[in-house]
């Protein structure tokens, strides 16, 4: 992580041969490499292999279908809807989450009285897990007994069916995901705002730039490395951490069109792999997601290289 910042010093100082010994470095690397080989690389190869079979792990049946699983998925209305929903959810939660956390981190970095307390109040929810977020929101937004509807019913006289109305359920999951991720993003923005070069910031203030100008013209571009890093981690979080949240909050529902509206890619994979026992189809989804993650990483490095250096 934080690779964007570090690129500069990776080159020349890398090759230090302080200690001698041909076997020793491999001995130090062995535990890590062994675990990665057995629990990451072997399952990756097996996922790719399984993706070519119509298989059921419970029954132990396998039948070679080649790219059949993949073409089935790409042609499936359900899967296409799930992929689209995941895309919309990811876009909304990543943009919303980053803008909100940048704004809050900026405000909390201002020299106002009690800013330390504000910072603490903003970052302590880092300890929230996706499962706890799901549990809390399931209770709070329960249409009959949830606190939110009790209050709304009494004050305004409406009791929305949060979890059964497709758009509301989708919005609820998105907002819950943003809420869950805020603290993590704020932590990184606070650290980076602290590390902004003092001379540049002071110069821009002496030049009587308005606060808005200082923010958008000076600070925002200087913060682009951390924003970049966070865009990547937030995409990964939206793709993977959303599982516990939706599993508890909506169970992937409510159903619209061909699938539950809060069924995202990992939830669908879990459903096919461990509820419907369509092992081959689940592995094929895994293979597609591997391609997706590879694409996101590739884009991060491509765009990162172009955008991240200035004023060196």
């Amino acid at each position, binding site marked *: 992580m934080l690779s964007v910042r570090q690129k500069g010093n990776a080159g020349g100082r890398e090759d230090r041969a302080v200690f001698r010994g041909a076997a020793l470095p491999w001995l*130090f690397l062995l535990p890590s490499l062994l675990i990665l080989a057995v629990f990451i690389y072997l399952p990756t190869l097996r996922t790719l292999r399984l993706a070519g079979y119509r298989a059921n792990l419970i029954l132990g049946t396998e039948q070679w279908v080649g790219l059949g699983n993949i073409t089935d998925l790409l042609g499936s209305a359900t899967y296409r809807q799930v992929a689209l929903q995941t895309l919309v959810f990811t876009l909304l939660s990543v943009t919303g989450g980053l803008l909100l956390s940048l704004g*809050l981190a900026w405000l909390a970095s201002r020299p106002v009285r009690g800013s330390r307390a504000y910072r603490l109040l903003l970052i302590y929810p880092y300890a929230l897990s996706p499962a706890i977020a799901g549990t809390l929101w399931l209770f709070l937004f329960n249409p009959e007994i949830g*606190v939110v509807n009790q209050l709304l019913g009494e004050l305004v006289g409406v009791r929305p069916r949060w979890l059964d109305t497709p758009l509301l359920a989708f919005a609820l999951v998105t907002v819950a995901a943003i809420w869950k991720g805020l*603290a993590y993003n704020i932590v990184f923005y606070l650290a980076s705002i602290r590390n902004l070069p003092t001379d540049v910031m*002071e110069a821009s*203030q002496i030049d009587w730039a308005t606060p808005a100008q200082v923010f958008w013209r000076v600070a925002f571009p200087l913060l682009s490395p951390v924003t970049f890093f966070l865009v990547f981690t937030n995409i990964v979080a939206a793709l993977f951490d959303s599982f516990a949240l939706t599993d508890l909050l909506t169970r992937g529902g409510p159903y619209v069109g061909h699938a539950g509206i809060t069924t995202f890619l990992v939830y669908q994979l879990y459903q096919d792999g461990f509820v419907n026992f369509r092992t081959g189809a689940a592995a094929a989804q*895994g293979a597609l997601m591997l391609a997706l993650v590879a694409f996101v990483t590739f884009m991060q490095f491509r765009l990162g290289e172009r955008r991240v250096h200035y004023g060196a």
Partner: protein
Amino acid sequence: MVRDRLLPRTPTPTRARRSDWGTHAALILAALLISAPLLLALIKATQPSSAVLSPSLLPGGAFLSNLERVWVDAHLGRSMLNSLIVAVTVTTGKTILALLAALAFVYFRFPFKGTAFALVLVSLMLPTEVLIVALFDLVSRDLNWADSFAAIIVPFLASATGTFLFRQHFLNIPASLADAARIDGCGPLRYLTRILIPMSWNTIGALAVIQFVYAWDQYLWPLVIMQRDDHQVVQVGLRKLIEVGGQTDWGAVMAGAVITMLPPLIVFTALQEQFSRGFALSEDK
């Protein structure tokens, strides 16, 4: 470096005062909104069953009796202990393995070093969730580890993030130090334990927070691989609390959820200085 730089400074006192009010208002509102779900959960966790489903927002005195119902009857105590065992083991293991790997990458020259480093880094792109079907097959059938702690600990012991962060940190330590140590007859392991680790507490602390929270939050993998309730982790335990069948005891569930938040909160609070310094350091020019 960690000290406040008082940014952004506003040019004139009048402008400063006016915008300070706006800042306070916005921050208080944000803190309230962010904390609202947690505050409501906390209030409901203290109310007796009769009040939990009412609109009342007055704290009650039933927190302990609520907690007792999930702690013993729903095995929350047991699953908290399981999660604690898993999170502590994973955090410790990841730290040690990452330190050793970084030691090899920074202080040795050996063939295929680039390949080995690439293998570690590329694993970042291969999340467990995506490999879960094959991983399940491997762990439950080939290794026969289903329902054991090994299944939820061992696959997570290697850390690409940790290796990378420690490597960066070691590269920022002057090479002359290692040269001097070697000339004095200090071997690599002694150099690691006597010199590198004492110089790395901020990075270790920052990493420990991330790893602990990551291990504590695990949900999908334990959900599929762990069928024995007495070995289940607490995040999945929450799901079982809600699913008891019939009426969910929400006061008790909220008490359980609040307690489940505590361990990562304690780790985070205890290591907060190291956490922000560890990242400040690695972000330094």
